[in-house]
């Protein structure tokens, strides 16, 4: 217990501080930006596919350093994109195990809703379910949260109580429910991509083109 006698506040502050250091701003289009997760120390950044446009995205770190990122992969089927920046002294986020989450566990969504950098919303896992994709995966697990999301949260992390990334905030459903892609789906994709790009240096991996999610309520 802290000096102020508060039970949760020091832990909340600590968790949010740590996560913010591993959170990036990804400017993928001319007039919009999303969030990005620094995945490892080599400069792999994970974000949503719909955050990206036609140009190379600009990634801004929490210490205001800016990098032009290289796109390693875009997967419209699960709406994920993997970027690479040539930076050192990165503070990657801890990746949690999203496969044994339970309904009711607390979550934090951290991102840049409506352009407010590093804003935090709080909620719980409200539903663990599956979504039909328009691609070869068929069905992927998704998690829904009652933490409020807004445009700008896209690509940002969904954090559990231990401060680990358990999902990537992707969509708003019905205005008050957030949808996140579990981190297990993302780490699987990143593993595949990194294996491919290790074989042929500087290769660009793109899974067979698939039409993306409906664009209407993508954040």
């Amino acid at each position, binding site marked *: 217990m802290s000096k102020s006698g508060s039970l949760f506040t020091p832990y909340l502050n600590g968790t949010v501080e740590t996560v913010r250091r591993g959170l990036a701003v990804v400017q993928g289009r001319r007039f919009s930006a999303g969030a990005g997760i620094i995945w490892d120390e080599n400069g792999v950044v994970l974000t949503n596919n719909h955050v990206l446009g036609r140009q190379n995205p600009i990634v801004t770190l929490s210490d205001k350093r800016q990098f032009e990122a290289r796109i390693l992969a875009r997967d419209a089927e699960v709406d994920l994109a993997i970027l690479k920046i040539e930076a050192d002294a990165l503070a990657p986020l801890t990746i949690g195990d999203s496969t044994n989450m339970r*309904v009711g566990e607390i979550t934090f969504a951290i991102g840049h809703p409506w352009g407010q950098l590093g804003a935090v919303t709080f*909620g719980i896992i409200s539903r663990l379910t599956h979504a039909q994709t328009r691609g070869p995966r068929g069905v992927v697990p998704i998690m829904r949260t009652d933490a409020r999301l807004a445009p700008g949260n896209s690509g940002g992390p969904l954090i559990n109580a231990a401060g680990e990334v358990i999902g990537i905030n992707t969509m708003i459903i019905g205005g008050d429910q957030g949808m996140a892609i579990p981190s297990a789906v993302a780490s699987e994709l990143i593993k595949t991509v990194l294996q491919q790009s290790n074989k042929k240096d500087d290769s660009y991996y793109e899974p067979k083109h698939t039409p993306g999610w409906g664009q209407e309520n993508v954040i």
Partner: protein
Amino acid sequence: MAKKETPLTALSKALADAVEKAAASTVTVDARRRFPASGIAYAKDLILTASHVVERDEDIKVILPDGSQVEASLVGRDPGSDLALLRIEDAEAAPAEKTEGEIRPGQVALAIGRPSTEGVQASLGIVSAVGGPTRMRRGGVLEGHIRTDAIPYPGFSGGPLIDDAGRILGINTSGLGHGNSIAIPVEIAWKIAGTLEKHGSIKRGYLGIRSQPVDIPENALKALGREQASGLLLVGIEDDSPASEANLMVGDILVGFNSQAIESADELFSLLSGEVVGSPTPIEVLRGGKLETLKVTLTERAEQPRGRKRKRRMAWGFGDPHHRGRGFSYGRGKGRKTSFRMRHPHHGIGYGCFSLDDDDLNDE
């Protein structure tokens, strides 16, 4: 990997445990057209749910937490408080545990629902207010309600509102609150469920008075012999009603019913149900500065016909169709409109207008 235990992870685990515990007695109730809703196991074979999600009286299906689907029959319903009780055949559900003690604003509340076979759903909030009596949309009055800011997702109606230990605080009836999320406190819901189990319906009493709240005059307070700020001045007595049989008169101030003090019409209304219907009940009035106790025998209120809901579209104006006012009609046939002048609590006096749909005209 050994995880560090912090108060946050402990809270997270406690909430997930609470959801898991309540989920064991939360079932799916499939008895309406579009999508199923939720229900609570009141007893081993009894499911308590919201009345507005049980649209049909037959072919009701209940899906238990283990995924097995069973047939259910309607034991009874009370549209006034929006509760319905179902009996499941050849199956057992784990009865829910209700909370003990007082429900306080600020305490953590989770809304739980199971609208599909995919598993339980939950949303987090707090108890925003505990209040009452509440006038419900279909004419009933509840003794109390819980207001919460937990988001009621589609299909949460009939599901429980639980505390952080997984015990039931109330039953969610998002269909009733005026745009807000309102839960019926578990004590009241359990009481109504008990009556539904025994009698199949809740008797709503009919008294036959028109009244307005007034301050009790000082000289009458002495005769009353207790601290009470206001009572109900009777301004009208219906002919051939229990009130006229009991010799209530215009000008009486109604101060008590069934040995409980009455300060407002809502309080009286919430007492006019259950066992008092049909049996002589004491009613206290101030008449000429003196306290008199009369005996009244309530009759049963005629059930509102459960017809098609009248569709009304707002043509212009403000407020909603529940702000009814005196109006006049103009136009004929399909395009006929009713307009009225009304006072809005925030916007003052204005004009509203409903256009009548074809359905309405066919009724007339």
